[in-house]
């Protein structure tokens, strides 16, 4: 499989009054053609900042992509791109769906106009033809009565319908990479299921790659090919969906999986919950970022940061427990996120 996107040593910081907030720390990963990579983690772990850096959408005054960071898309480095080339790529080769469809769509423009806008930005075609394409797109995302819906404003639509419009805008120019940042968080379960089904079929049909940013592990297990677990701006574990859910090796991944009430768990029994809070991102960490909250913390964890241990071609984990000299620990989770205890 060919690599579509390659991110190397990505460091992103926010300059705040309190100092430099290092939101993304030395993150490297790649996305292959036609695959779905999920970025998972708690709020503030850097998953959204990572995905926005790929589009260079972070505010230039506050956010800094550090020297040495590399985001290679189809062989071109996005970090070094000038404005003109960026404008060509955004909404064309790389498109993004945002979490909140109410604030992401323009309330003063009809839905049709907003779709046409993105088509005309990248194609030199007559407006009427763009309008036809917009209609086609609304049909593609399965909006009922598409001819009428072209003329309505976002506030006249429901949340699920608005999210479909966002998908239509994103797909207008057949992007190679779609970044979906919490695409269904604000929606009901039934609508969420409809939308994820739709995204799945569209992804197959159009041959896109998808980066799915979410904290909903249920969606990830259904939709993603590979998963990358992030904590405090770093990748702590990565692997195929099967490896992450059925053979997780990092204590943080265990904790994430255990805090979901599984079917095997007795009613009203204690749910597993992580103690403490994530580390302050103002600090430079020389230790494992998870050490303070980890149930299996060893002396070395508070002294030195673990390197990624490669477990298979696709699976690697940054944890001292995987060091040959570390004590062997049985993960608290068995197959399929079932609770063992």
């Amino acid at each position, binding site marked *: 499989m060919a690599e579509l996107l390659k991110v190397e040593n990505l460091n992103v910081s926010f300059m705040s009054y309190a100092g430099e907030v290092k939101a993304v720390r030395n993150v490297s990963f790649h996305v292959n053609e036609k695959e779905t990579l999920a970025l998972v983690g*708690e*709020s503030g772990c850097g998953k959204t900042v990572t995905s926005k850096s790929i589009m260079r959408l972070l505010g230039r005054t506050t956010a800094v992509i550090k020297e040495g960071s590399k985001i290679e898309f189809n062989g071109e480095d996005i970090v070094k791109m000038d404005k003109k080339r960026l404008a060509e790529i955004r909404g064309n080769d790389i498109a993004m769906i945002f979490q909140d469809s109410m604030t992401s769509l323009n309330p003063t423009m009809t839905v049709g106009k907003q779709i046409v806008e993105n088509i005309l930005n990248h194609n030199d075609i007559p407006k009427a033809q763009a309008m036809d394409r917009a209609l086609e797109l609304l049909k593609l995302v399965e909006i*009922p009565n598409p001819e009428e819906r072209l003329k309505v404003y976002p506030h006249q639509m*429901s*949340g*699920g*319908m608005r999210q479909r419009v966002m998908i239509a805008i994103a797909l207008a120019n057949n992007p190679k990479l779609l970044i979906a940042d919490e695409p269904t968080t604000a929606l*009901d*379960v*039934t*609508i*969420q*299921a*409809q939308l994820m*089904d739709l995204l799945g079929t569209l992804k197959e049909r159009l041959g896109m790659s998808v980066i799915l940013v979410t*904290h909903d*592990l*249920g*969606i990830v*297990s*259904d939709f993603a090919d590979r998963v990358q677990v992030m904590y405090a701006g770093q990748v702590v574990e990565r692997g195929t*969906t099967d490896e992450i*859910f*059925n053979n997780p090796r990092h204590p943080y991944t265990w*904790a*994430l*999986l255990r*805090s*979901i*009430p*599984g079917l095997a*768990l007795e*009613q*009203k029994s*204690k*749910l*597993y*919950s*992580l103690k403490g*809070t994530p580390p302050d991102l103002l600090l430079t960490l020389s230790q494992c970022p998870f050490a303070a909250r980890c149930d299996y913390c060893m002396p070395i964890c508070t002294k030195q940061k673990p390197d990624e241990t490669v477990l298979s071609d696709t699976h690697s984990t940054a944890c001292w427990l995987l060091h040959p000299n570390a004590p062997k620990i049985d993960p608290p989770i068995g*197959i*399929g*996120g079932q609770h063992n205890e």
Partner: protein
Amino acid sequence: MSNNNLYEIRNLKRYFPAKNGKVVKAVDDVTFNIARGETFSLVGESGCGKTTCGRTLLGVYPKTAGSILYNGKESSELSRAEQKEFKRQNQMIFQDPYSCLDPRMAIGTIIQEGMNVHYDYTPAERNEKVRELLYKVGLTADFASRFPHELSGGQRQRIGIARALAMNPSFIVCDEPIAALDVSIQAQVINLMIDLQQEMGLTYLFISHDLSMVRHISDRIGVMYLGSLVEVSASGPLYEKPLHPYTKALFSAIPDIGKRSTKERIRLQGEIPNPMNPPPGCKFSSRCPYVTDRCSHEAPQLQELEPDHFVACHMAAVLNK
């Protein structure tokens, strides 16, 4: 058994006036009981009336029709003194921990506010109470002098819980208390709520659309669709064998962690209809895969298909043979 019910709700209706003389039937003819010490959950899609139902119970919204018996007494006919006591005993935890706390009040003041109305404590006693409550919800005494913006979402939600507990309530409406929180924090808050329930004998009305959490915390569950209860049952049987087509679809939308689509998904077509203009007959008929002629004429009533398992569907008996 009836004296074991804290709440008995009979044919409760709450309509809101809308444009052009139309009405939104947010809660339409709902009947259920909440037993003392149990957790009763209302689940359903947004706009199905679960929040309105909770708020109407507490008298935040006046009811349009029907009766709400609290401890066997009609809640709208209480005397002034009884009303005050009712308000003390019935508390609420809100969904958004960011907007439910006054940003200009210190945490201690927020927690004390209700106490000043209902209890004659001296200032020293009040401060002691605040300290106790903060410990109870897993925070430390120094939080009392902080302000809401200094706290994380999970901590704020704990303050919301402490504020409710300050009244020594017997009943708390928990309106999506974990929807705005991270998964790991959700587990903390749910654990706290379960502990407090066991310790203080609280009764919860838990409103949520997180179906796996609802299963974990609830004793009984009511499923709502467009203002009506379509199914009421103990939590175990409901998840093992849902009887209503809507409940089946809702539960099949819960993703299986770690297993890729092993179960057959029932995908509902379309979205929830406009509550101002619901379909005639059974409100679910416009999206139901098993719709018959009868469904679009006659609204089904809740019937006890299995012991203590009520369902409002004409086809339920046939479909669940």
